[in-house]
């Protein structure tokens, strides 16, 4: 590939093929070096020169013919070559530096010598040294020590890096020093900067990933600094020994002198940069960022200063793990606080949904979102900036079939879910937390696309002009615009702490739900136990209590029947009382038994014609209580409806209420009315507040003109064995009828109450829901 058909390094490249070419363009095979030094490649077996840079003639006065194919000692003294060989032995895969001097016809040249080995050859790079006194050298050394001492005192990452760029600025005298940090998408952001007055600043500025092609990143990762003292200098070609046989180009990956790629030159010159030194920052074997030193004018830098910067870079890299950004730390702490407060309030909440949704900001701050949707049992509630409800529902539906993990997150939702292209401004980023798939308990958080989020520091276009030839080349302006197009429909990535918070929230909710389930299970267990005990009690009451009762009853009767001649009148009376008391006790036990069974048996709900039920009840009552019932006037106001209920139990309700109406009266001809009122007709009847607040339903009533009930007894008439009258008044009774009636109504999720005017009559009302 010639330079002509290089793709322009347009970072907005959307064509993946072009993008790949750009990313993988082999800058290390350019066959060119910068002109401020000489490169010689030798054969590792016999140390004969295989390639040499064309400027060897200009620099050392050696002709190419005298060098190529010849032993290296045609260029360097033998003892220095021996020294180099020893160096290479000791450090096989790095670049080692030494100093040597070369006698040319006219002078002695002091040189920095860098030596390293490629797959095929040994590469020797020679760079003339500008004279430098020992005092200056000492000063440089001290500066490095002081810099390291100062940096070791700082714990906060941002401050640490800011101090570091200050130190490097002093060590290099370059006029613009920046630290770039790469995010997970390889986009860079300037996070520390020192700039001389008049230099455009880029602090906070984002740069898209393609600004640094992938291959170049990999070269940085070797940890070797990149130094270009003059971007205007013309590159020097490397001349091969066998120019015709298609020798593969020399691998310049670790060559200090490797030329600067034209694209990179343009890029920097567009920023008015003419010299740079770039040092990689590597954390956990990954390229974490770069220290970039720029100078507007060409600028040389001694090897010792460069290697001091490299050392400082290595120190910074090593320290990165120990420094925590105070800002990030505060953010993480804040997130943690929100989470714990959140969890505490959910744990105490009666209403789980309310606790999630109120206050709204808490749900959003938990993961740094601007909008959220809470889906409980498929019912969606929106909070903050979100897509419209129908779109959110569609997204949830899509997630049901496409997302199987408990936590899904993306900062480019439309890549996964194309329909999201309709609303990038509110939901380019999505974090989806599935608390329960089965019950559809989901929380979705949304983030807008980046330009809505980021405020730009400075204007990168102020001091710039676009290339005159109109070519889209890499310049900060193009880069910025490209970046903007790049972040279309892209949100800020979710941070680990935010994802952790979501997972912690899920665990907390599940924990709370499980706790509640445990509590419930415990309550159920207790309930089961007490039900069981109640059943045992009822059983005991029916068997064990009744047995002696029968004995007393039967033996009293035996005495009455077979020994009446030996008993006097009062003895007989007392035995009769004994018999009566056992009968009464039997009745009480039966009522109790009935009540306990009522609580345990399942209702048999079915559509029931109440009219037929009530007619039958009246018939039975008339048959058994002929005297009072015959005289009574029992009216059904209008045909009663058919409702869902347990027919046998409802029959019992009407039996109890009707027989009470017949019993508790002084009228010779009692009038009893049975009827019902629809919700629209209920204004004419008194309804207690707790009933009125529940669902509207039909109210049934049984009205009599009997003796009435005093207000103070309206509640306790429903208590078990509670009677308002003497034991035998109004036909006696166990005092369980109304208790059983109330229990039946409650088993139907209904309410029963009484309205009465003492001395005028009573009206029992009940509502089934």
């Amino acid at each position, binding site marked *: 590939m010639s330079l002509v058909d290089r793709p322009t390094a347009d970072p907005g490249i959307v064509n993946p093929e072009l993008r790949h070419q750009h990313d993988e363009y082999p800058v290390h095979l350019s066959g060119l070096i910068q002109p401020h030094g000489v490169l010689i490649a030798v054969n590792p077996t016999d140390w004969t020169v295989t390639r040499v840079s064309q400027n060897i003639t200009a620099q050392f006065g050696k002709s190419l013919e005298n060098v190529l194919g010849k032993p290296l000692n045609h260029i360097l003294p033998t003892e220095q070559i021996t020294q180099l060989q020893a160096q290479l032995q000791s450090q096989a895969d790095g670049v080692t530096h030494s100093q040597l001097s070369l006698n040319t016809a006219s002078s002695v040249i002091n040189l920095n010598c860098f030596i390293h080995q490629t797959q095929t050859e040994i590469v020797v790079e020679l760079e003339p040294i500008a004279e430098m006194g020992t005092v200056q050298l000492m000063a440089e050394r001290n500066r490095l020590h002081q810099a390291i001492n100062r940096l070791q005192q700082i714990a906060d990452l941002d401050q640490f890096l800011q101090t570091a760029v200050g130190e490097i600025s002093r060590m290099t005298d370059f006029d613009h020093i920046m630290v770039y940090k790469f995010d997970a998408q390889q986009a860079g952001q300037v996070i520390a900067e020192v700039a001389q007055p008049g230099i455009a600043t880029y602090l906070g500025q984002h740069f898209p990933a393609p600004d640094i092609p992938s291959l170049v990143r990999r070269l940085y990762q070797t940890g070797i600094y990149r130094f270009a003292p003059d971007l205007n200098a013309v590159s020097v070609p490397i001349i091969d020994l066998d120019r015709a046989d298609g020798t593969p180009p020399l691998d310049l990956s670790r060559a200090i002198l490797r030329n600067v790629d034209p694209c990179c030159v343009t890029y920097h010159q567009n920023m008015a940069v003419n010299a740079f030194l770039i040092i990689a920052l590597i954390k956990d074997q990954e390229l974490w960022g770069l220290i970039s030193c720029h100078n507007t004018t060409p600028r040389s830098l001694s090897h010792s200063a460069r290697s001091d910067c490299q050392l400082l870079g290595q120190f910074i890299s090593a320290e990165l793990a120990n420094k925590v950004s105070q800002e990030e730390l505060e953010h993480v702490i804040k997130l943690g606080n929100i989470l714990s407060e959140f969890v505490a309030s959910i744990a105490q909440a009666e209403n789980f949904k309310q606790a999630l949704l109120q206050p709204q900001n808490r749900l959003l701050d938990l993961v740094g979102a601007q909008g959220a949707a809470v889906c409980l049992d498929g019912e969606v509630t929106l909070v903050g900036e979100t897509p419209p409800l129908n779109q959110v529902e569609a997204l949830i539906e899509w997630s049901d079939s496409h997302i199987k993990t408990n936590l899904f997150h993306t900062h480019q939702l439309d890549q996964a879910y194309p329909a999201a292209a309709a609303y990038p401004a509110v939901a380019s980023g999505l974090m989806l937390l599935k608390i329960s798939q089965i019950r559809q308990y989901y929380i979705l958080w949304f983030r807008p696309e980046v330009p809505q989020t980021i405020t730009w520091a400075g204007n990168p276009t102020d001091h710039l002009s676009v290339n005159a030839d109109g070519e889209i080349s890499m310049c900060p302006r193009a880069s910025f615009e490209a970046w903007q197009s790049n972040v279309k429909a892209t949100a800020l990535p979710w941070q680990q702490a935010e994802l952790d918070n979501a997972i912690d929230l899920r665990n907390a909710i599940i924990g709370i739900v499980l706790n509640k389930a445990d509590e419930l299970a415990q309550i159920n267990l207790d309930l089961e136990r007490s039900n069981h005990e109640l059943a045992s009690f009822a059983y005991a009451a*029916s068997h*064990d209590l009744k*047995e002696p*009762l029968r004995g007393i009853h039967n033996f009293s009767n035996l005495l009455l029947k077979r020994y009446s001649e030996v008993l006097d009148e009062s003895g007989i009376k007392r035995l009769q009382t004994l018999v009566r008391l056992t009968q009464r006790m*039997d009745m009480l036990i039966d009522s109790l038994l009935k009540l306990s069974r009522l609580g345990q048996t399942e209702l048999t709900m079915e559509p029931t014609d109440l009219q037929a039920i009530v007619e039958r009840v009246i018939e039975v009552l008339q048959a058994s209580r002929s005297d009072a019932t015959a005289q009574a006037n029992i009216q059904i106001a209008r045909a009663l409806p058919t409702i869902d209920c347990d027919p046998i139990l409802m029959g019992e309700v009407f039996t109890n209420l009707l027989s009470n109406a017949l019993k508790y009266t002084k009228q010779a001809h009692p009038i009893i009315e049975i009827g019902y009122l629809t919700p629209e007709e209920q204004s004419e009847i008194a309804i207690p507040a707790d009933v009125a607040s529940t669902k509207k339903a039909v109210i049934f009533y049984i009205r009599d003109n009997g003796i009435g009930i005093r207000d103070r007894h309206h509640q306790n008439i429903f208590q078990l064995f509670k009677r308002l009258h003497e034991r035998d008044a109004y036909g006696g009774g166990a005092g369980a009828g109304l208790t059983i009636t109330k229990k039946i109504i409650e088993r139907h999720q209904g309410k029963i109450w009484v309205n009465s005017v003492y001395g005028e009559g009573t009206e029992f009302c009940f509502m089934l829901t």
Partner: protein
Amino acid sequence: MLTAVDKSLFVIEDSDEDFEILKIFIEDMDITNPIYRCETGDRALDMFYQEGDYKDVEPLPHPSVILLDLNLPGTDGREVLGLLKGDQRFRDIPIVVFSTSSDPADINLCYEKGANGYLVKPVATDELEKIVQSFAEFWLNINTPPQLT
């Protein structure tokens, strides 16, 4: 093995009072069939299976009917019913349950296990008398018990 049928009544009842009353009511009817009684289910089973105290005792002839109380100490009446009705040798002996329990669950369970009748013990003496005498009249006088072939 039980070999003969002697038209006896076999009562399994733990309450002395209940048994005494029962006897009185049956005696009032001039019924002379022998009445045997066991106070516990275990004892009754020992008699039928010739175990325990009845190991070396001549097996009892089959009664015409067994009157069984459900609420027994030790082995419960429901179990006794299940065992006898589950055993081919005793399955044909009519068993009538005589219990205080009017719980539908109890009643249905007994019929499921093969009971031939279920009588609820009432508290009222005259009612009890009526029940006991009807029972005795039917099972000891009217009904034809299973015959040995």
